[in-house]
């Protein structure tokens, strides 16, 4: 279900992107549609994800939430590892392998994070970033229902990452519920750790949509550079 729904949503996005032009300079030829989808995502956030996350924080004690967070992050590590390798980042691949090994064993299936105490820093990679290091551009800006900002390169990356995820190949009897549960808790965990963020950004913007578009791109570019500042391309102030 996880793969299928993603294929559908992302596939529609890519179809749209296929006939993109760039009249605005913001590389956002579908701005009108994107703004409508953005509004939908915001409503989803306001009426469903936000209240879910608030209830989660109210009901589940903090150590348990930290355990859930660690567990979910640990599940993502095989995907990070595959992409570390594809990018030729051997030292980071070693970090990822070390984190996964330590946290999956000493950390009780990833519920705890002893690897950080051992001085192995956390990082994430995905196939969208790998494509970027191979020279693939972001493509026209897209906002997808449920997924938020997700231009073609990053959306493609998310689909490919499904195949790097070992849990895709473990066919449990209750595979649907496992996938749906992981999906749900990832969203609720993320939101619960950032409850008032979007509101703050919204208040501080004259055009919230444009600010999120700008921040999304800057953040992805920073992830692609693995956090190294882009000294040559700073704004001409």
């Amino acid at each position: 279900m996880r793969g299928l729904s993603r294929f559908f949503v992302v596939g529609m996005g890519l179809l749209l992107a296929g006939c993109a032009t760039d009249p605005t300079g913001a590389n956002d030829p579908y701005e009108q549609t994107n703004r409508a989808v953005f509004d939908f995502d915001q409503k989803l956030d306001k009426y469903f994800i936000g209240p879910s996350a608030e209830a989660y924080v109210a009901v589940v004690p903090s150590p348990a939430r930290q355990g859930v967070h660690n567990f979910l992050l640990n599940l993502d590590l095989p995907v990070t590892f595959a992409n570390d390798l594809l990018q030729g980042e051997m030292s980071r691949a070693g970090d990822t392998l070390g984190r996964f090994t330590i946290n999956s064993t000493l950390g009780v299936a990833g519920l705890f994070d002893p690897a950080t105490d051992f001085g192995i820093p956390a990082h994430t990679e995905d196939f969208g970033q790998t494509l970027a290091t191979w020279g693939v551009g972001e493509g026209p800006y897209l906002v997808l229902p449920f997924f938020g900002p997700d231009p073609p390169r990053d959306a493609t990356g998310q689909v490919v990452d499904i195949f790097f995820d070992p849990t895709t190949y473990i066919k449990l009897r209750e595979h649907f519920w496992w996938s749906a549960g992981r999906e749900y808790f990832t969203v609720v965990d993320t939101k619960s750790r950032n409850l008032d963020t979007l509101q703050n950004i919204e208040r501080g913007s004259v055009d919230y949509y444009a600010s999120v578009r700008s921040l999304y791109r800057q953040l992805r570019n920073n992830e692609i550079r693995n956090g190294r500042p882009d000294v040559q391309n700073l704004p001409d102030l």
Partner: protein
Amino acid sequence: MTRLFPRAHFLGALRLLALAAIVAVAMPLAAARAATPAEDFVQTNVQKGLAILNGGGSKEQQREEFRSFLLKLTDLKRIADYTLGPAKNTTSPADLAAFEDAFREYAFAVYESEFSKYSGQTLKVTGSVERKAGDYLVSTVLVDPHAQKGQEPIQVDFRIFGTPGHFTVADIIVLGLDLAITEQDDFSSFLAQNNNSVKALTVELKKRAANVRAGGDLSGK
């Protein structure tokens, strides 16, 4: 791997950007190291800002002190002009001056709305680059006593212009999120929807700043 709306790191970074608005100008530096003049400038002012935040006096006094501290430290005119993008070239000097005033008030409103969120974070200078004469990037790392475990280190970079003794801060970059670029993208979209009227943007920023002064939030609603 799953990312509904929006990505974990995306949200995390946005939260830190908001926090850094106050933290970045006001933190002490943990490490003593052989520093360049630009690094020294950042270090000294971070300590000055922190002294104000931790100092006595009424909240009102603190805000006033912090405001004059920022006014001296930052080159808000340079940032304001940049955020207009190409629209700057088609704006009359009078309209431009009015916009720069409104931008300054708006910037202070942003800082003031973040003022109460400071809770013991510090910054550690990690290095600097001179991009060209009088144009520096000073890098620091955020040391946050409340950092959640497993969180990646937060890099905060400062754009510094000028010569030793006459430095000013013109931009802050948190986790690669550049304040000046973000504001320019935000404003240019507003301008595109308002006939490129810098006057309309000036009115909007003034309205929002006034709302914060009246005890409301930045949204101006």
